[in-house]
């Protein structure tokens, strides 16, 4: 058994930022990471587009990670445990398995920064045969960028989220033929810049409201039957076509790695709910990064991780004092909001949320219980793929709140 002030599970950008802040704040901190290295998913994202907001400069994923790893290595008070799996969480303590054996770490506070896993063929009920040649995007990305191998030669990508788009470009550059990116929704969920830079620039067709009806092939994927779906995702059988390919890559969504937590989950984020200190319903347990909700920009992950780290270390010192608690509820086109509850008091809260549909020339508005606007922010245009952020001063909080979009 070992004692720490703050335990951080996950050594991705969220966990690294949290651990840095916590140890800078004078707390004896440990990062537990199951991979042999720190950096999380960034290590396999060798494209650029990381850090523009945080560092004011564009990096690749590994470069961005390296910045943090270097800071961490210089930090006193901070233990790094790699190749170490957290297998159980008990309050603010964790059980770990590593090559040194099975052990328990006891903490005064705990930060959950375990990131996400990818949705699979089984999750989306992909039908037909089940041969080799079906990969999740992250699995294919690791294969190409870390192992230096290829998943196949003729590729269809299902799902137009950022990871799918980036893999379309990556595989094309590596000599594969990406025959199509198929998206079941009428709009893509990826960032605009990625549609242009990853598909348009390489003439890769994006097929909207289209899905794979059937996988063909016995030992290895030989092709697919695909076609159009209507607005309620029902297949339109008359549109069925066949396409030859040897590989199917699934980029059909991420799900927070909540296996270890025993807390009620939010229906939309599929993760735990937190207050404005990023603290979960369990005292002293904080959450951040893709574990809390799926982020599109790593910069926001680092900011959120840093906030969780500060709050966790204050809690460990017994200094986290909170005012009165109120709810913050998303309304209308807003699909979810973090935090789920807020406290009155001092300072400013970072509110992150997503919208369900594209909006233009509107105000984000926070209303109190009596319908009074306590703050608003103008938004020119926003897309579902882009996480939205607004700030709120705690001294304005005096009742339960609602977050809305008001079209101008």
């Amino acid at each position, binding site marked *: 058994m070992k004692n720490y002030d703050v335990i951080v599970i996950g050594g991705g950008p969220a966990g690294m930022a949290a651990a840095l802040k916590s140890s800078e704040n004078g707390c004896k901190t440990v990062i537990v990471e199951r991979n042999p290295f720190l950096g999380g998913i960034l290590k396999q994202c060798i494209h650029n587009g990381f850090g523009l907001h945080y560092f004011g400069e564009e990096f690749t994923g590994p470069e961005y990670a390296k910045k943090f790893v270097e800071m961490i290595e210089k930090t006193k008070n901070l233990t790094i445990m790699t190749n170490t799996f957290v297998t159980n969480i008990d309050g603010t303590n964790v059980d770990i398995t590593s090559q*040194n054996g099975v052990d328990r770490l006891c903490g005064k506070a705990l930060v959950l920064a375990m990131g996400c896993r990818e949705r699979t063929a089984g999750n989306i009920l992909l*039908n*037909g045969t*089940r*041969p*080799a*040649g079906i990969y999740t995007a992250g699995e294919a990305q690791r294969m190409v960028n870390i192992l230096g191998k290829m998943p196949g030669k003729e590729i269809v990508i299902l799902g137009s989220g950022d990871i799918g788009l980036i893999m379309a470009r990556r595989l094309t550059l590596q000599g594969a033929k990406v025959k199509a990116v198929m998206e079941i929704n009428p709009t893509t969920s990826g960032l605009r810049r990625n549609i242009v830079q990853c598909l348009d620039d390489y003439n890769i067709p994006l097929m909207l409201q289209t899905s794979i009806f059937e996988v063909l092939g016995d030992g290895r994927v030989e092709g697919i039957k695909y076609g159009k779906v209507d607005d309620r995702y029902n297949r339109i059988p008359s549109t069925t076509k066949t396409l030859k390919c040897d590989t199917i890559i699934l980029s059909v969504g991420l799900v927070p790695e909540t296996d270890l937590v025993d807390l009620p989950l939010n229906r939309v984020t599929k993760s735990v709910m937190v207050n404005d200190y990023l603290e979960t319903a369990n005292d002293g347990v904080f959450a951040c990064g893709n574990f809390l909700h799926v982020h599109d920009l790593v910069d926001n992950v680092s900011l959120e991780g840093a906030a969780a780290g500060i709050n966790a270390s204050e809690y460990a010192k017994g200094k986290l004092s909170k005012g009165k608690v109120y709810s913050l509820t998303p309304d209308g086109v807003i699909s979810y909001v973090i935090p789920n509850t807020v406290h009155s008091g001092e300072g400013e809260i970072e509110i992150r949320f997503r919208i369900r549909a594209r909006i233009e020339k509107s105000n984000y508005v926070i209303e109190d219980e009596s319908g009074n606007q306590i703050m608003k922010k103008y938004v020119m245009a926003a897309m579902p793929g882009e996480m939205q952020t607004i700030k709120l001063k705690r001294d304005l909080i005096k009742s339960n709140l609602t977050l809305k979009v008001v079209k101008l």
Partner: protein
Amino acid sequence: MNRISKDAVIIGAGVVGVSIFNDLTRSGYDVAIIEKELDVSTGTTKANSGLIHAGFDCKPNTLKAKLNVEGNAMYPEICARLGVELKRLGAYVVGNDEEAVNNLMEKGKANGVKGMKKLSNSALHKLLPNLTPEMTTGLFAENAYIIDPYFYTICLAEEGVINGGEIYFDYHIKSIKQTANGYVISNGKEEIITPIIFNAAGAGYNDVAKLLKSELYNVVHRRGEYYVLDHSEKDVVKSTIFPLPTKAGKGVLVTPTVNGNILVGPTSYESDDTTVTTAEGLADIATKVKKMVDNVNLGKTIRVFAGVRSIVGEDFVIEPSQKCKGVINIAGICSPGLSSAPAISQMAIGLSGLKYDPTIRCNKIAPYTNLSKMSVAEKNALIRRDKDYGLIVCKCEGITLGEIKDAINRPIRPRTMDGIKRRVRAGMGRCQGGFCNDKVAMIISQENNIPLNSVVKEKSNGYYMLSRSGVNEKL
């Protein structure tokens, strides 16, 4: 050409072929299995409900009824010997047709099934709180078990191997010639001579029969599709729950698996020999299960799959060939084939004229390393001995490098990724190998000393990754 001679050859490494293999090797015979795929248990044996049925719904006085009840009684001892988990959870049959329940009770009695009782509406709902109100009558049979069918078959095959048996994988029969010394089976590279052949090729029965020029049967295939639910759902049912059977089969059931998942299915569609899943099939299951049990959350699906039943008329066919002396035809082994397999084996051996005497070779397989069943102290002792037991490879099922290496270094060395999955469950969990597939492929490559890009998922053309230049190396 390489030529080997055997006392008997079994074609097909499903549960039926492997049961015969196991019994004959223990009886001291020099036997071999010929299997076209790369591992045992890649056919119907890997894709079924995993139930050892009590035997009440087979038509009385059929082979199915007799062999199911006999096989059922043999399972506890075999599993204890192999160290394979067999859980006696019992099975419920529920519905709203009192007459049909009585009928099943009668059949059970006729088939010699013990431990059955009829349940009143209130008793039923007390025992199964999540049953829909439409389910008003039913029965419980205590002698029904759940088992991991592929793991069982693998262990049975391993025991056969350590008792002197041989398995030829990736063996594609080109010809079978009848000679004065017996049958000469050839794949063009390796010839095997034997006086006795068991055709246990499952869905491939007729293909083999054509080569042998033995009896062909009218085999009908019926596909069964399933959902596998996440561990999070493991408590939705505590026993197997069937609807009252119909002509098409036992209907859509819900059952726990020995590994803490839930299976929902199967459908029963006539089809060719393919294991596709379909949107219609899955929708059909969803509708049917909702009518029976109301808390099954199909949103927690981690995998869908299908298996194919091979049906010949109403009963199993287990008989000596009239056309080819020394050939035993085993066809139409649909459900309850798994439950009956130990008894099918004994019957087939009897018909072949060989003698079943398991006292001749009694080597036992070592148990699989399974850290999830160990105490902290045991785990630490193991990790101190070998650090590989401290490195988790499959995050969802918590499987370590040491356990995977041990599973490879066994009497039958798996060389496919699905082979690892069936042995130690790496890749069977909720992320379905998204996290560990590449790691497992690397371990297979290292332990078997084969190039990484020649590692396959299941079939010999099912490569997992190519080198950067886009080539894969054949095994």
